[in-house]
């Protein structure tokens, strides 16, 4: 068996994280479960709206590369949102709340949340 061209000896003394393999720390937010589901994510989404929009736009660009007609994105924006009605409480209301506070179409928020199921093949 050929050696892994990208393999290396076991690293040591990498902690605390720093140097070229460390890109940064991660902020912490509180999600208050006592709030109505549609309001729980407001603070976080207000802070991360731009970043979330960038990710979703990136995924849409990839979809449009494979389906230049734009039909896939159109279906997601106009049909997939109806899927929310079939999702269990409180998740359906949380997704609606995220769509409301981000201004991102509900269908795109739903797709972002079921990416796992789509990509397991």
């Amino acid at each position, binding site marked *: *068996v050929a050696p892994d061209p*990208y393999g290396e000896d*076991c690293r040591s003394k990498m902690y605390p994280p720093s140097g070229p*393999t460390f890109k940064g720390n991660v902020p912490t937010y*509180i999600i208050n*479960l006592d709030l109505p589901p549609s309001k729980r994510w407001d603070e976080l989404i207000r802070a991360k709206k731009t970043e979330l929009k*960038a990710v979703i736009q990136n995924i849409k660009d990839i979809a449009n590369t494979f389906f230049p007609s734009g039909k896939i994105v159109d279906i997601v924006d106009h049909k997939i949102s109806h899927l929310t009605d079939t999702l269990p409480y409180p998740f359906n209301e949380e997704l609606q709340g995220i769509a409301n506070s981000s201004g991102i179409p509900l269908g795109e928020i739903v797709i972002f949340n079921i990416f796992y199921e789509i990509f*397991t093949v």
Partner: protein
Amino acid sequence: CTSIVAEDSTGKLYHARNLDFGLFLGWDVKNNSWTVTRELKPTVVNLDFQRNNKTVFRSTNFAGYIGMVSGVKPDLFTLTMNERFSLDGGYIGIFEWFLGRRDGMWMGFLTRSVLENATSYQDAKDKLAKTRLLAPAYFILGGKNSGEGCVITRSRTAALDIWDLDIKKGTWYVIETNYDRWKPPLVLDNRRTPAMKCLNQTSQENISLPTIYDVLSTKPVLNKLTVCTTLMEVDKGHTETYLRECPDPCSPW
């Protein structure tokens, strides 16, 4: 992804993971990186879910994603989820959902429910092993007491395998890298062997969150898909997350 639950020689449990995501979702030739992986990094957040101003559980999430892929319920259990690829995949579950069969759980919602509602390691293990799912998955669960750690290999309908820690037989860690443990990993994507080599080299006597971070920093366990590394200890629900970069030369997955 790579998930590890390990027990040190005093019986203390550690749980850590590399979150890898974005395979085949756009390659940026200029920066030698996956575009979605890169765009996801600024969305990574630690979340503290509270009720009555008290922490119920903590997780590491992408902003906008309400399910859980890594989380800890303080003093009870730690949980990560790894993707399991199968021809009997999630698209069949979604198709069934559209046709009206809705007795399965969406993966992210199950992990969220378990972190929110499970009352013990065993309760979490039962729920993760027995609940019908829309897509196959690997659940990596750690507890608080010696021997409480396992990898649950799930099809959509059943637990195919549960691999438990077994200190008496020398199994002081369990590891999951997106392949069934009874099968060899794909030749082009063998992260399991190098991770096991580094864990064995570290030894049970020296295992800790910093030394597990070393394992998760070794290429190709660290690769171009790695978004972040999360380190967890069940005691008081300790969790820390770091965004990662894999400088060239680095495996694309």
